[in-house]
């Protein structure tokens, strides 16, 4: 597992990418700062809907993870180097899991820090709220990573499909069709955030924290298993 993990880290690591991710991670923190210090303090609801749900959960997390986890396998397929890994006498899960862990290793610190600082500024140091937001953000990173990793194996147009999912499915359709939220990672993570800190988010919470966590674990595992199955059955270029 080690060599695949290190190889993937090296493949995904690049100076430009790190710079862009740092900029992206800093953005919501700055916005939270500006929002709170410009005189008219917004309500929790506004802060939450614009910054946390709109920017962080709605755009930054899924896009950053798409660029990283989506690329983890898709780049190898495009470059035709995936065979180097599959022609090894190791079980397929020992290829999928390290790739996933490497993607999460790169994306998670930025997202976690961003979520932590943003909620720290926004909720003025309320420890439980900050923990809820950060945990939910990390859960979102894990869920999106597993989903996009699988997508990268499924099709060479992983990015197009991923973008369509993020912008159209989670962004637009979910506003009009309530049922879509059941199949939306964004709404799962937001539900998790609500469930973890009910005092603050009680009005919005519909799901208990145990149920939310269990759902997250199930979805994560399902995508990992799908990715392993796909790797076993696909034609490797």
């Amino acid at each position, binding site marked *: 597992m080690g060599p695949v993990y290190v190889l993937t880290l090296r493949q995904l690591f690049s100076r430009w990418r790190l710079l*862009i991710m740092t900029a*992206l991670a800093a*953005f919501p923190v700055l*916005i939270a700062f*500006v*929002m709170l210090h*410009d005189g*008219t303090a*917004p309500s929790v609801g*506004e802060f939450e809907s*614009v*910054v946390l749900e*709109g*920017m962080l959960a*709605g*755009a*930054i997390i899924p*896009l*950053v993870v*798409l*660029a990283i986890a*989506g*690329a983890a396998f*898709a*780049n190898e397929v*495009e470059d035709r180097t995936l065979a180097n890994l599959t022609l090894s006498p190791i079980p397929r899960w020992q290829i999928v899991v390290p790739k996933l862990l490497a993607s999460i290793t790169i994306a998670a610190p930025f997202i976690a820090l961003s979520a932590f600082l943003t909620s720290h500024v926004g909720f003025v140091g309320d420890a439980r709220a900050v923990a809820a937001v950060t945990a939910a953000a990390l859960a979102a990173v894990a869920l999106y990573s597993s989903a996009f990793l699988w997508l990268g194996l499924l099709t060479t*147009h*992983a*990015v*197009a499909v991923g*973008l*369509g999912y*993020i*912008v*159209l499915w989670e*962004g*637009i359709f979910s506003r009009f069709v309530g049922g879509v939220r059941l199949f939306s990672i964004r709404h799962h993570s937001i539900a998790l955030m609500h469930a973890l800190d009910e005092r603050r988010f009680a009005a919005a919470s519909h799901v208990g924290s145990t149920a939310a966590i269990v759902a997250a674990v199930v979805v994560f595992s399902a995508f990992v298993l799908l990715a392993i199955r796909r790797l076993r059955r696909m034609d490797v270029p």
Partner: protein
Amino acid sequence: MTTAVTERTGAPAAHRGTVFDIGYQRYDGTREGRGRAWLAVFKNGVRTSLGLGRGAWAKTIPWFFIGVLAAIALVIAMLAGRFGPEAYDELVSHADYYPFFTTIIFVFAAVVAPELLCRDRRENVIHLYLVRPLTGSDYVTARWTAFFAVLSAAVWLPQFILLFGFSMGHPEPVTYLRENWLDIPRFLLSGLVFAAYITMLALLTASFTTRRAYASVFLVGLFAITTPFTFALAAELEGAAGQWVSMFNLTQIPVNVNDLIFGEVNAMTAEMEIPTDALPSWVTVAWYLGWVLVPGGVLWLRYRRLSP
């Protein structure tokens, strides 16, 4: 005598025969120049954008987006037909259409435009283009024009559907058209405004990376991330400051020009209570032009210095 027969009928005589040399022949025809090469790159750009001449999967993505845009327009047109002119105010008008659907148009460009530039540089095919009577700038202008043409057509199509719906829904279509004919040049111009802007930004981003995936994600990220906060902030700070902030929303830049063309604030912007008249109109237009011409210059320079 036999010759006479041959001349009359034109058929070759049986005792005459010719052997044709079907081996490799050099090309003796006219050799066309730079303009023709530009045109070839342009046509290829159009075909690539629409997925023509490639597999079914390549067609799915661009036509899906075009289909979504057209389908929504179709629904609105049918509602117009069903409910008549009284309902027109409630429906999405020509002025509102582009602002409402900027997201879809942006995602379309983000996914399709990088195909035009990234692939050739990644596979090093760009050099095959450059050894022809074609400079780097020719190549990029041809590609730009190709995507601009495709995007313009894609955004005009739903407007024409809307026009059809509105005019047919009116009890006297001819009267409707006579009263509202100005809408046509307006939405055509506005469509070009959107198409030019989006094409420019999409291709500029694509020129910075060889992997299409990164260009696409970066573009969508650019739009998706600036949108929520700039709107919220702009609504907060009123007046000129608020309007300036809203102008940093990349999706809003062409929308402001759209509003100028139609002479009214579109429904979406109005709903969000963003200040729109605090700054003189020439500022809006100049800002738009800046966001088109400066990236255009950068794109031009990046490709100009490529050599075979």
